[in-house]
C-alpha cells in the first residue's frame, strides 16, 4: 500500500480546498459552532478546528483547546454526513389544482451542485455505505438521495483520537477509513499522508505539491490509528446480536431503561444510519397548491407506529426495544450487517446519557459472547 | 399594568342639561396578576414572563425588565448589545404601529367597518401596510426567533448573535421597503383628520443623542426632567371602582404618553432626512391635535426603518452577545418607550436574583385618565345631541387613536348613555 501514499505539507490542505473549489465543488468541513464541531461551508483552513479537542461521555460533550497544530485531533461531532445526503426536511413534489379540479404534479427533485466533504471519519463512511444500501436498492431508488449522493466527493481523515464514547473498533468500522472515500488523509505533526482511492481523488492529489512519505511517517500514521483503536473502552460484541436480542424480548431491562429514556428521538437523529422519515404536506391556505415534503422521523415517536386507532408501540419500553432490536438485530436481515457503526453519537447526544453498549450488554446478558 | 388594562371596554356616559355629568371608561379585562406571579421567580424567568403581558408589544416588556435587572446586577452592556436592543425595538415599533395604522386607525378614517372591507377598495395601501408589518416581524425574528414572545433576549444582552448573512438578507429587504415607509408618512399626512386641538401634557423619555427607545430621562412638555427611578415621586397610580385598569396621574393631572408625546418632545433628535419628510408632508409638529397620533406613528415607522438600516449596515459579530454578571440583591428600574408610550418597571430581587416585588406601569394605564379627559373635550366639541350610534363611533375613534391595548375591545364599545 505504501507506494500509493503521498506526503503533503500542512499548507497543502488549503491547496486541496482551492483545487476542489476551482472544480466547482462547494466545500463542507468541520468547524466550531455553538460549543461543538459541526460541518458547515468551508472556504478556508482557518475555519477548521485547529488545536481543538473534544471530550465525550454519556450525555456530555465539551470542547477544549490543546497546543497542537493539527486540524483533526478530535473525534466525531454531533452530525455525520447524513444531513448532506438524507436531508432533515425536503420537499418531494408540488401539486396544483386548477379550477376544473385537475391536479398537476411537479417533481421537486433537487439538482445540487457538486459537494466535497472534508474530514469524514471511518464510521461515517461505513454509515454512508449502509444508507446507500437502504436508499439505493435495486428497484426503487430514492431520487432525492441519489441526486445528492452522486455529487459527493469525500475527503476522509483517519482517526487518531477516539472519544470515550467511540467503539468503532468493536464493530469493525474504524478508526481506519478503508473504503468509500475519494481521498483519505492521515494527519501528522507537520502535514498529511494522502491516499487517493477514486480516479478523481488521485487526479486531485497529483495537483498538489507532494513527496513520497518516509517509512517513519508511514509507521507513525499507522501507530496513531492503532492507538485510537486501543484507546476505545466501549464495545459491542462483533458477532450478530440478533438472536441474543430477540431471545430477550421480555427482559426486565426494557422497562428499566424506559424509566430513564425520554423518548426524545435524539439518538436516532444523530445516528448516521437511521433512515426513518415521515411525509406530510403544506397546503396553501386557499387550496390552490400544496407542497409535499418529508422530514426525519424516529421510532421513538407515536406517529411512527400509528395505524388507525392503534399505536403499536405506545410505551417507551416498546419504542426503545424496537430501536435496539432493529439497529443491532433485524438490521442484519435487511442489510447483512448491524446498523451500528460504533460512532457513539447516540451515547454522547442522548440528553440523559443512555449508553447503547451498556443496554445491549445488559439485555443480552451472559449470552453476549456466546 | 396592561394585564389590568386591556380587554372589553364600555363607556358610561351621563348627560344632564347638555352637559356631561359622568364619563367612565370601564375596563373589564380579567386581572392576570402578573406582578404577583413574578414573585419568587428567578430573574431568568422574568423576561419570558413579562413578555406575556402583551402579545403586541412583548419586546417593550422584555426591554424594560432587562434594563431594570441589568442595573441591579451592575451590568454594563457593550455597544453591540445596546445597538441590538435598539434594533429589536425598531422591529416592534414597526410591527405594532403598522398593525395599528392599517387594522385599526385607517378603516376608521376611511369609513370602513374593518380592514378587510377596506382592502377591497385600497388593496395597495393595505398590502403595503401588511408588508411593513411583516418586516417588523422579521426583525423581531432575527433577534428573537419569533415575533410574538421572542426568545432571544436575556439579562445582559442576547442569548446569541444573528449571523452576518441573516442580517445582510434582511437589510436588503429593508432598503427595498424604505420608499414604502416614506409613502406611508405622506399617505397618513393626507388623511382627512378632525382638527381637534387640545391642551395636554406630553410625557416621554429623552436621550441626549438619539430618539428615545431604551434609555433616557423622563421629561414632560411642562418642564419635568427626572431620572427614571424618580417616577413614583411624581406619578401616582390609583384604582377606581369602574375599571380593572389603574389610573395614572402626573401632579394629579392626566397626561399623554405614546408616539405623539414622543415626537412632540424629541423632534430634534430625528435625523434630518426624517425631519425633512415631516416638513414635506405639511404637518407641523409639535402638534396639539390628538388625531395627529396616527401620523406620528407613520413617522416613527419611517424612522425605525432608517435606524434599522443604519444599524444593520454596520453589523458585525460581537465578542460576546451577553455580558457576564452574577446575581445580586437590590432594587432596579427600567423605563423604555413601548410603541404606546413609556413602560415603567421596578424590581426588587433577593441575593439569588429571585423576584421579591415587581411593579409594572404600562403606557395604557398611564393614558387612561387622559383618554377620559379627551372624551370629555371631544364629545363637547362634537356635540352631545348626536344619536347614540354617532356618539359611539366618535368615542371609539377617540379611544382608538391612543392605540390602547383595549383597542380591540373598543370596536364594540358598549355605550351606556343616560340622558336624564
Amino acid at each position: 500500500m505504501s507506494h500509493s501514499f503521498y506526503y503533503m505539507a500542512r499548507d497543502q490542505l488549503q491547496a486541496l480546498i482551492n483545487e476542489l473549489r476551482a472544480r466547482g465543488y462547494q466545500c463542507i468541513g468541520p468547524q466550531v459552532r455553538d460549543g461543538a464541531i459541526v460541518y458547515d461551508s468551508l472556504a478556508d483552513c482557518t475555519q477548521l478546528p485547529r488545536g481543538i479537542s473534544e471530550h465525550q461521555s454519556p450525555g456530555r460533550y465539551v470542547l477544549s483547546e490543546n497546543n497542537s497544530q493539527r486540524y483533526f485531533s478530535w473525534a466525531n461531532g454531533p452530525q455525520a454526513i447524513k444531513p448532506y445526503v438524507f436531508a432533515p426536511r425536503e420537499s418531494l413534489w408540488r401539486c396544483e389544482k386548477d379550477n376544473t379540479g385537475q391536479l398537476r404534479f411537479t417533481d421537486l427533485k433537487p439538482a445540487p451542485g457538486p459537494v466535497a466533504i472534508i474530514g469524514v471519519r471511518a464510521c461515517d463512511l461505513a454509515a454512508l455505505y449502509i444508507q446507500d444500501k437502504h436508499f439505493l436498492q435495486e428497484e426503487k431508488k430514492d431520487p432525492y438521495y441519489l441526486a445528492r449522493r452522486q455529487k459527493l466527493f469525500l475527503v476522509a481523515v483517519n482517526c487518531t483520537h477516539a472519544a470515550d464514547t467511540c467503539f468503532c473498533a468493536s464493530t469493525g468500522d474504524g478508526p481506519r477509513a478503508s473504503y468509500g472515500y475519494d481521498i483519505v488523509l492521515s494527519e501528522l505533526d507537520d502535514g498529511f499522508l494522502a491516499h487517493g482511492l477514486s480516479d478523481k481523488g488521485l487526479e486531485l492529489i497529483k495537483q498538489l505539491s507532494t513527496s513520497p512519505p518516509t517509512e517513519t511517517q508511514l509507521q507513525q500514521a499507522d501507530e496513531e490509528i492503532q492507538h485510537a483503536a486501543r484507546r476505545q473502552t466501549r464495545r459491542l460484541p462483533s458477532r450478530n446480536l440478533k438472536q441474543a436480542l430477540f431471545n430477550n424480548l421480555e427482559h426486565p431491562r426494557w422497562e428499566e431503561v424506559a424509566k430513564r429514556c425520554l423518548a426524545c428521538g435524539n439518538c436516532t437523529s444523530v445516528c448516521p444510519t437511521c433512515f426513518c422519515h415521515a411525509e406530510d404536506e403544506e397546503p396553501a391556505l386557499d387550496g390552490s397548491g400544496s407542497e409535499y415534503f418529508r422530514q426525519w422521523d424516529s421510532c421513538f415517536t407515536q406517529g411512527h407506529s400509528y395505524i388507525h386507532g392503534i399505536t403499536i408501540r405506545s410505551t417507551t419500553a416498546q419504542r426503545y426495544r424496537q430501536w435496539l432490536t432493529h439497529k443491532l438485530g433485524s438490521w442484519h436481515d435487511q442489510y447483512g450487517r448491524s446498523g451500528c457503526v460504533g460512532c457513539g453519537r447516540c451515547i454522547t447526544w442522548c440528553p440523559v446519557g443512555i449508553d447503547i453498549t451498556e443496554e445491549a450488554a445488559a439485555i443480552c446478558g451472559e449470552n453476549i459472547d456466546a | 399594568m396592561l394585564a389590568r388594562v386591556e380587554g372589553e371596554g364600555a363607556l358610561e356616559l351621563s348627560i344632564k342639561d347638555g352637559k356631561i355629568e359622568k364619563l367612565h371608561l370601564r375596563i373589564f379585562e380579567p386581572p392576570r396578576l402578573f406582578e404577583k406571579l413574578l414573585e419568587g421567580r428567578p430573574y431568568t424567568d422574568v423576561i419570558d414572563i413579562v413578555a406575556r403581558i402583551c402579545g403586541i408589544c412583548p419586546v417593550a416588556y422584555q426591554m424594560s425588565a432587562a434594563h431594570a435587572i441589568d442595573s441591579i446586577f451592575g451590568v454594563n452592556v457593550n455597544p453591540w448589545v445596546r445597538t441590538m436592543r435598539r434594533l429589536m425595538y425598531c422591529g416592534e415599533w414597526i410591527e405594532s404601529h403598522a398593525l395599528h395604522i392599517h387594522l385599526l386607525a385607517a378603516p376608521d378614517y376611511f369609513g370602513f367597518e374593518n380592514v378587510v372591507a377596506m382592502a377591497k377598495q385600497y388593496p395597495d395601501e393595505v398590502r403595503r401596510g401588511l408588508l411593513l408589518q411583516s418586516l417588523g416581524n422579521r426583525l423581531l425574528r432575527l433577534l428573537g426567533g419569533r415575533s410574538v414572545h421572542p426568545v432571544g433576549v436575556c439579562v445582559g444582552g442576547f442569548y446569541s448573535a444573528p449571523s452576518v448573512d441573516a442580517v445582510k438578507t434582511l437589510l436588503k429587504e429593508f432598503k427595498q421597503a424604505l420608499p414604502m415607509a416614506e409613502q406611508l408618512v405622506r399617505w397618513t399626512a393626507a388623511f382627512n383628520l378632525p382638527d381637534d386641538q387640545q391642551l395636554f401634557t406630553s410625557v416621554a423619555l429623552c436621550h441626549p443623542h438619539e430618539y428615545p427607545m431604551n434609555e433616557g430621562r423622563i421629561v414632560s412638555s411642562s418642564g419635568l426632567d427626572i431620572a427614571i427611578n424618580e417616577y413614583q415621586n411624581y406619578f401616582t397610580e390609583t384604582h377606581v371602582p369602574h375599571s380593572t385598569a389603574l389610573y395614572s396621574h402626573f401632579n394629579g393631572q392626566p397626561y399623554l404618553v405614546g408616539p405623539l408625546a414622543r415626537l412632540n418632545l424629541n423632534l430634534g433628535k430625528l435625523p434630518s432626512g426624517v425631519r425633512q419628510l415631516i416638513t414635506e408632508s405639511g404637518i407641523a409638529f409639535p402638534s396639539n391635535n390628538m388625531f395627529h397620533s396616527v401620523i406620528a406613528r407613520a413617522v416613527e415607522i419611517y424612522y425605525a426603518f432608517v435606524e434599522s438600516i443604519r444599524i444593520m449596515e454596520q453589523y458585525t459579530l460581537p465578542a460576546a452577545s451577553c455580558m457576564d454578571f452574577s446575581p445580586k440583591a437590590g432594587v432596579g428600574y427600567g423605563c423604555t418607550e413601548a410603541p404606546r408610550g413609556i413602560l415603567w418597571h421596578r424590581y426588587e430581587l433577593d441575593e439569588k436574583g429571585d423576584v421579591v416585588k415587581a411593579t409594572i406601569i404600562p403606557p395604557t394605564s398611564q393614558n387612561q385618565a387622559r383618554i377620559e379627559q379627551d372624551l370629555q373635550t371631544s364629545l363637547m366639541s362634537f356635540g352631545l345631541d348626536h344619536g347614540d350610534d354617532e356618539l359611539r363611533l366618535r368615542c371609539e375613534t377617540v379611544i382608538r387613536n391612543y392605540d390602547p391595548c383595549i383597542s380591540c375591545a373598543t370596536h364594540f364599545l358598549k355605550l351606556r348613555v343616560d340622558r336624564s
Partner: protein
Amino acid sequence: MPNPYLPYEAKIIERIQESPTLFTLRLRFTDPVIHKDFRFEPGQFNMLYLYGVGEVPISIVSDPQDEHMLDHTIRTVGRVTRGLAALKEGDRIGVRGPFGRGWPLAHAEQHDVVVVTGGLGCAPVVSVIHYMMRRRERFGLINIVQGVKHSSDFIWKERYDQWRKAPDTEVLVAADAGESLWPWHVGPVTGLFDDLKFDKDRVIIMMCGPEGMMRVVVKYMLAQGVDESAIWLSMERDMHCGIGHCGHCQYGGKFVCRDGPVFCYKEIVDLFGVKGF
C-alpha cells in the same frame, strides 16, 4: 427512471357506496398510457393521495386482467379516508403504485384454498376471491370464511351468494353481533372452522384482518396439521412511502410495504403476535 414518490393523476369514474362506512372508488389514470401500462397482482396496494390532505395505502380490489377497472374499497376511519369518502365522480386524486407483494396465486393453483377475513379486512382478499372464481377450474376446494363485527358491516352479500353457487365452494359468514334476521353464524369467526372442508396437505390459507383473529386462525390451522408454509396473511402497518424507505412499516427485519403486505406465516413466525412490533 420514474420517480416512485410522484403520484399520477387519476379520475374517479364511479363511486359506489357499499355500506354506511365503506365505499369503492373506481379509478382511471388520466394519462391513457399510464392506465394501459398499469399492472398489478391481487393483494398489492396503491398509495392514494387526497389533494392537500395526505396519502394512504389502499389495496387494489379489481381483477388484474380487467383493464377497465382499478377499484379501491375504502373504509372511512380518519383524516384521509374521510376526505376520500367525500369525493364524487369526476374528482381527481393522485395514485402511485402498485406496491408490495400480492397473494401466492400461482402457487395456490391445484390446491384447496381457505380464505379467511375478519373485521374490516375483507377488501384485500376480495380481489383474490374474484381472481379464483374467474379461474375456478385451476383451484381445488375453495372455502371463504368471513367474520364481521356487526351484521351491518357485511357487504357484497350478492357476491357472496354468487360465490356460493360456484362448484366446490363453501361460503361461511359470522358476525360478532347481528340483527335478528341475520341468516349466518353469530359469534366469532373461529366458530365456523369445524365446518371447513380441505385437504390439510394440499391447502393454502390466505387471510386478512385483525391480528387477533389471524392469530387464532393460525393456531387452529397448525393444530389441524397445516404446514406453516401454507399459511399466508396480509399485514398492516403505518406506511408513508410505500417503497421501503420511510421505515414506518418495519416488522422485525421486514418492510411490510415491500416484503409484504402478504407474508407467508413462516417468514414472520418469530414476531407474529408479539406486542410492540
